[in-house]
């Protein structure tokens, strides 16, 4: 197990290396440069040259990449051109809200998914199943940002139950402030996971080992929780792993709508400002998160399914 994890982490290194090459050269291929954005319409060739020199942007690209990698290996992502702070500090300040929002919405999604999928599966083709189906179709049809804006209008602006924007203080403050964005994302996630979980529950209910378990006299309840749920959750876990990556992207929009100081806002701003170190840093961090997530999913998979051996 430990050997497996270490091997997986070693395999990540070339992937991340490829990612640095990709983002480093891609952001520099895009028209526009940080110096002209900083100077705006007042830019003169001399002023641009002087800023580029001070940022080291006048050197050949390969040399710049060399400097970037040298610093990166020492854990230094460079300084933000716009904020004039180390990128590690900037990301450190802002990754908390993003991760909080991602996990919050995932947990809410699970809390919505499990009961609804169970009820739907146990009442297949009867009215509870139909209600769940209408709910998932509705949630699928409404984009998360639209749901977010509607909830904001209704619950924050009109009835003032929730705050309009921000991140709040302390754990419970975060829970309160991030509820609307988290529930908006959670509904979008649940729309996918409910259907998946429902069909795998149905599949499991029809399998031989469930019939055997019932035949040997186990109660319906313990068959359901021990055999059915555990086996059915496997496919949903894989799906959640994939969705996690999607949600990290989805938070960018939520962070904008709800003014949450996360890394999504940071990278959008960074792209507009051509703040190369910020773009590189955030991309790299997201890359690491995505790779770690797939590792965690594989480990969970093995923990839930004894047939899977990590080797």
């Amino acid at each position, binding site marked *: 197990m430990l050997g497996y994890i270490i091997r997986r982490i070693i395999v990540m290194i070339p992937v991340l290396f490829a990612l640095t090459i990709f983002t480093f050269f891609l952001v520099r291929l895009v028209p526009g440069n940080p110096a*002209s954005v900083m*100077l705006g*319409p007042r830019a003169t060739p001399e002023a641009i040259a002087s800023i580029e020199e001070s940022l080291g942007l006048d050197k050949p690209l390969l040399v710049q990449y060399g400097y970037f990698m040298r610093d990166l290996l020492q854990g230094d992502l460079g300084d933000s051109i716009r904020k004039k702070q180390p990128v590690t500090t900037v990301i450190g300040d*802002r990754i908390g809200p993003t991760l909080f929002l991602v996990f919050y919405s995932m947990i809410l999604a699970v809390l919505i998914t499990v009961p609804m999928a169970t009820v739907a599966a146990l009442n297949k083709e009867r009215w509870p199943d139909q209600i769940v189906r209408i709910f998932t179709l509705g949630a699928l049809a409404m984009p998360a940002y639209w749901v977010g804006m509607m909830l904001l209008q209704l619950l924050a*602006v009109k009835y003032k139950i929730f705050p309009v*924007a921000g991140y709040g203080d302390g754990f419970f403050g975060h829970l309160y402030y991030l509820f609307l964005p988290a529930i908006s994302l959670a509904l979008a996630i649940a729309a996918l996971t409910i259907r998946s979980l429902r069909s795998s529950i149905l599949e499991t209910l029809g399998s031989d080992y469930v019939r055997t378990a019932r035949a040997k006299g186990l109660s319906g309840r313990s068959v359901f929780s021990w055999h059915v749920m555990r086996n059915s959750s496997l496919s949903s876990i894989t799906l959640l792993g994939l969705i996690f990556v999607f949600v990290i992207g989805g938070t960018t929009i939520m962070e904008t709508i709800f003014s949450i100081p996360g890394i999504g806002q940071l990278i959008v701003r960074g792209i*507009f400002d051509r703040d190369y170190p910020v773009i590189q840093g955030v991309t790299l961090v997201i890359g690491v998160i995505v790779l770690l997530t797939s590792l965690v999913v594989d480990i969970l998979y093995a923990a839930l399914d004894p047939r899977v051996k990590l080797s």
Partner: protein
Amino acid sequence: MAFDAPIKTRVQLKDSELAARQWDEWRATRRQLMKLGAMGGAGIAALNLLPATGGSTRALAQDAEPKMGGTVSMSMADSDATSFDPPVPVDNMSIWTMLLFYDQLVRVNADGTAIEPGLAESWSGNEDATEYTFNLRDATFHDGSPVTASDVAFSILRAKNQEGGAWNFILSAIDTIEAPDDKTAVIKLSKPWAPLEADLAMFSASIIPQSLVEEQGDDFFQHPIGSGAFKFVSWEKDQEIVLEKNPDWWDTGKPYLDGVTFKVLPDSNARMLQFQGAELDIATSVPFNQLQSLQSNPDVKVVLDPVARIDYITLNTLVAPLDDVRVRQAINYAVDKQAIIDNVLFGYGEIANTFLPKMVGHDDSLPPYPYDVEKAKELLVGTAAENGFELELITQAGDAVDTQVCQLVAAALAEIGGNITISQVDGATLLDAVFSPDPNFEMAKVYYTTDILDPDELATFGVVSDGGALAIGSSYKNETVDQMVLDSQSVLDPEERQSMYNEIQRLVQEDAHFLYLFYPSGRTAVQAPIQDFHILPTGNYRLYEVWRDDV
């Protein structure tokens, strides 16, 4: 929006008479706008004389006595501030915020018509304008230490010599600054320089405490100390900037507010939602399409202020068929600007008639290009565009107003045979294409603003062929215009200068290197208790004159 980075130019007040005359007209427009703005039912604005500072006049919505206390939260609509090191930033958010906690030797008055005393209570210049003596008042920095003449010398020379600074040219005429005693600063110039006072009112010439800056270096500007109306409290990057009242400010009795919180809200939806949720007292840059519904809401007030901004499409005069002045004029005739103002700006703007925004030096009497499709078609006869033309129009992606404007322009030009492709690009790409030494575009929707009260810098920038920005990417060159702008710099008679500028504007309009669009009005929404909030024509705001009537 990155492209919102405005054009900053220096303040020049060579002729106060001209300024005063222009501003009389200007105030008339402002009153009309304020009537339109309904001012929360308060009715027609009246001109009141304020007792204090320099006998300045300004429009007040109500003549009640200001109350002390309370705080306000206000949006920063462009982006977060970038730096509070006076000579460094080029963005308005930093500049306007900085003006609230740093003082300068002198400042621009509330109307933007003249220079009034700041840290210097009086000053005098020698006859050939090469030496000025400033007498400092008894003022203290926020840490309690006195503002001395050596702080003045330190701050201004530091700004002048800032390495790679964008604003060094403003103070370039200054040679030395001497401090014969703590309260006297003598500025010696290397050449006669009439606009010195106006230059010293700029943010870059803010006075900072020498000992602290030398001791702390760059850290100082993370928690700056000035002598201004408000004290800097905290700056949470991309979140908010908090200022509190400076009770010991030299302008006794002000500010009225206990504090201000600036919230970084570049997204207009988020900004207006917070305003509607009453979590924001002052929302700047209100989207045009929300103004009418806000005006019918009794809980809020819409403040419409004239700001010196022109929106236009710059035409690259090096590209066929735009190299032909007849084609450029035809384009100006073919577009119905009033329709754009009515439909996109919901009426909150005026047709642009010259390259100058509505400011000192602007010629109101020059008629704009009328909407005349037949005339446009006539002009095209015999040009390369006679049998139709294809052009690309670039605009900033994500800006709903600009996108709609471009669509209307494209539709209008289709009437005269134009096949216009609209390309939406991001701000940095647009900047790179237009404001580069080697412009690479055909038509581009852009705008400029100014915080100067003299047309000289904007003319240098917008129409003079070697003025730095290649006449906003158009590569426009008219030697007569170049010479007239140069000549006007040394003309001190206001009448004569204005007539020169009228002629410049007429010539430039005829050459049509822009497709002139509109002058939009400044749009701020404030909650009902907020009193006396105004955006100055130069874009900044005197928050130390704002008060709440619910405290």
